[in-house]
């Protein structure tokens, strides 16, 4: 409550900067929306529940996009919700297209814009062949940085363009939000000979950007780490490196790649949900024999070496390793 920054800012700005106002506004808004129902069980109860759900990150479920992207906490919560709800899809080993991932996103947020999904897919697919299939983990990590740092990435794209065209990016202060700008990628023309920009210079610019950026941006140390490994790199090279990096820990929304398919609590819940089905099928416990069938016949896209994705839970680790393999495969196809 008494953090030192608090004294540096007027109260109102402090609340705004911490997004407390956003939640207060939203809470009142929700209250307005359902005032009859809520008044039945008490306004105090409502506020308790509201701020509890904000803390738990469940407040973003089925909400409109403008709210979901309003605060970093909302973004992280949404990422986490997406991961939790559709982890099973990734676990099944299905490779999906950008549009299908978009559909899944829309299940949680009906007005989720296609543009964001496209950008995320572009990070995975290196901007070409947008109809290609992606593994869940590839998409998820790319989507993470695209969604969480979306404004930051816009600015980075602008800076990158300026660097490419030889301008001094530091003179550019307002990042343009025109999304088409960074699509003219240096795949043709003079840039193809010397692809990308020089990493140190790029880093300098980014550091500068991080300093003055009002939206959330990745920790400069991480950026430095990514950029210090190479001499030159392209915009998408940067994004791919960033998405592969342990930016998770910085965000805290998603587990590490290795643990991506691991969520014992929900798995238990799923088993409980599936019980009636097995009882119907009259082969309780024989999970493998039941599921091997449909998986073989209905999901031909499943890479053959990912055997039966529905192993009993204690094999979850192994499945992870295999899905890592599929990631490598998509990497190969990109180059």
């Amino acid at each position, binding site marked *: 409550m008494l953090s030192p920054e608090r004294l540096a800012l007027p*109260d*109102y700005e402090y*609340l705004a900067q911490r997004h407390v*106002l956003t939640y*207060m*506004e*939203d809470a*009142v*808004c*929700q209250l*307005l*929306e*359902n005032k009859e*129902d*809520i008044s039945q069980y008490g306004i105090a109860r*409502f506020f308790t*529940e*509201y701020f*509890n*759900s904000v803390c738990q990150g*469940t*407040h973003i*479920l*089925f*909400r*409109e996009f*403008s709210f979901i992207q309003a605060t970093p906490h909302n973004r992280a919560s949404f990422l986490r919700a997406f991961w*939790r*709800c*559709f*982890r*099973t*899809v990734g676990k*099944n080993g*299905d490779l*999906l*297209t950008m*549009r*299908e991932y*978009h*559909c*899944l996103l*829309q*299940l949680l947020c*009906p*007005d989720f814009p296609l543009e964001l999904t496209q950008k995320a897919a572009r990070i995975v697919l290196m901007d070409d062949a947008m109809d290609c299939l992606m593994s869940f983990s590839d998409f998820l990590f790319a989507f993470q940085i695209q969604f969480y740092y979306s404004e930051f990435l816009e600015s980075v794209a602008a800076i990158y363009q300026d660097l490419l065209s030889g301008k001094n990016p530091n003179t550019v202060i307002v990042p343009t939000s025109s999304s088409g700008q960074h699509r003219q990628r240096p795949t043709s023309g003079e840039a193809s000979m010397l692809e990308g920009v020089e990493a140190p210079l790029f880093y300098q610019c980014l550091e500068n950007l991080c300093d003055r950026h009002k939206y959330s941006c990745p920790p400069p140390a991480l950026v430095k780490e990514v950029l210090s490994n190479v001499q030159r790199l392209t915009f998408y090279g940067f994004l791919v490196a960033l998405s592969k990096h342990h930016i998770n820990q910085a965000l805290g929304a998603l587990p590490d790649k290795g643990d991506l398919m691991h969520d014992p609590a*929900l798995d238990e*819940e*799923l088993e409980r*949900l*599936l019980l009636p*089905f097995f009882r119907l*099928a009259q082969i309780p416990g024989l999970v493998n024999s*039941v*599921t091997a*069938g*449909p998986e073989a016949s*209905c*999901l031909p*896209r499943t890479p053959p070496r990912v055997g039966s994705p529905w192993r009993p839970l204690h094999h979850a680790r192994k499945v992870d390793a295999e899905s890592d393999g599929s990631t490598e495969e998509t990497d190969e196809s990109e180059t």
Partner: protein
Amino acid sequence: MIPGKYRSVSGRAASNVNCGLHLVIQASSLPEKNKVRFKQVEFKLNKETPSFPGRLLQHDLERNYSSRQGDHINLVSSSMPSFPILQRSSEEKILYSDRLTLERQKLTVCPIIDGEEHLRLLNFQHNFITRIQNISNLQRLIFLDLYDNQIEEISGLSTLRSLRVLLLGKNRIKKISNLENLKSLDVLDLHGNQITKIENVNHLCDLRVLNLARNLLSHVDNLNGLDSLTELNLRHNQITFVRDVDNLPCLQRLFLSFNNISTFESVCCLADATSLSDITFDGNPIAQESWYKHTVLQNMTQLRQLDTKRVTEEERRMASVVAKKEEEKKRESHKQSLLKEKKRLTINNVARKWDLQQHRITNIATNQDRKDSDSQDHCQNDGSTISAFPEETGSLDSGLTSALQGLSVTDTHLVEVDGDTLSLYGSGALECLDRNWSVQTAGMVTTVSFTFIEFDEIVQVLPKLRIKFPNSLHLKFKETNLVTLQQFNALAQLRRVDQLTVDPQGNPVVNFTLWKYYVLFRLSHFNMQKINGTEVTQNDMIMAERLFGILAHVASSELPQYHLISILGDARKKQFRYLLETKGKKPGIVNEENNDSKRLVGESTNRATLNYTTRDFYNEKLEEIKEKKKFCKIYIEDLVKEATEINMKNEALQKLWPQMFIELVRDAVMEIRNKNSYMKLCLQQITDQK
């Protein structure tokens, strides 16, 4: 002896032949009467007795003669090397002054016949003659028989103006020609040649019998001018169609057996040949058809014989009955095809509009487009006539009970009920759900198919569909812009869905790997049987649950209650709003429906939160939210500002307070420092007060 073709010409031929033979015997025994008899024959030929095929008689008669006469003939080599000269004894000349028979003489050329100008009958049967020659002087010749020779061209006959019977059967003639001067020809026999075309006969106005059997004719044509023709034999050709027969005023017998006629249309002129009484079609493809007999009889009421069998009254009556039925059927099918065509055009039109709407018209196949648009225009022109249609079929609700097909056609949409299927094309068709369908029709419909309609528009009428067609089990979607998985959520509000068919055309969602599982998951309370024609298995269900079960769990158990209420409330409100609109007058039903919907919600508690609001509705909602947000923002801003101000004042007070306190204490201390004077002062004050 009698050539086969002749024997089969007519069933009655045999008796005539007998008759002829009889006469012959008479003639030979009484030579004097011979001339008389011949005249009789001649007379008969002129008389044109229809029931008496005189030519047969003639033919047989002469053949019999020749066999008797041959012995008395001397063929003397002439001075000219190539042509033999024929001479007969004067006796013979007297005996058979008007006839000469040179049958089976192995002649390769026609001999020069001298001093026989009175000859009226000449017979060259069964020789090897290749060319008709040396007979131009026989100007009184009436009968010329060249049957079974090797003649390749009709020639050398121009002077024989009185020739009445010309028999050229079984030769090698390729073309009918050089008959210009034979104006009084009565019988022309050209059977067994290689003629491909009927020509150069139009001037033979006295010709009664024409035999063209066993030739190479491919069609019958060019018959005008043959005003006396009563019998035409065309058996054993390759005729596929017959024309011009209606230009033969006297034709009675027409033999078309063993040709290649397969439709009645190709011989339809026969219907107008009023004098025709006897016809044969046997050995043609047409005779194999089931409709053959009654079609022929119906179209040719003048017939007395068909394929050598007498046509009975019964048959005629049958034919007319069948024909009438046929006619009705045709009319019906015509009507059907008309409707079908209209349907096709309308669907085309709807499809085009849809394409325009979807901005999918490309530059490819612009020609085709133009053609299409032509037909569209046509359809639109028809619009005025079609527009009467919905009215007409407006009674379809009641009329449909008996009829299987009802069509309501307009330009922009199409509604069709075919058996148990209700097909809707174009968004306008959705309005039909507002109509009052008969209970029976509504109950019968189990399949509802949507084509060229935005799914979002369909969603809005689903509650109506639920009420109007309670038995609909199978939903079909084609070209409906199903793009996202969440759109399937909307189907959950239906009563029952057993089968779902989503055509990949115009529904990109089908390309997704997961769509089937999502449908199974979201609509699991329906216990779906089939998706896109594939049976749903237990494994599919498990898979669906595995993939999306957590989503449902998260949605139901982790959703904060206030939000859950708002989501469910929306759905309930939506339903309620519709029910109020339509069934407001009957509160009883509202209650029932309400209970129903509650039960439905209960069935899928944990996935009821996964619902779908159409884009328009959602945008509306977002607008609403925006408004509220604006208000909330201002409200909160004011609140917070007030609070911060209070806080600031409070803080300022807090900051000042210690100093103030010290000052206060200091003042107090200073005041009481001089105890005596302070006491004095106090006392003074007390006394002053009194």
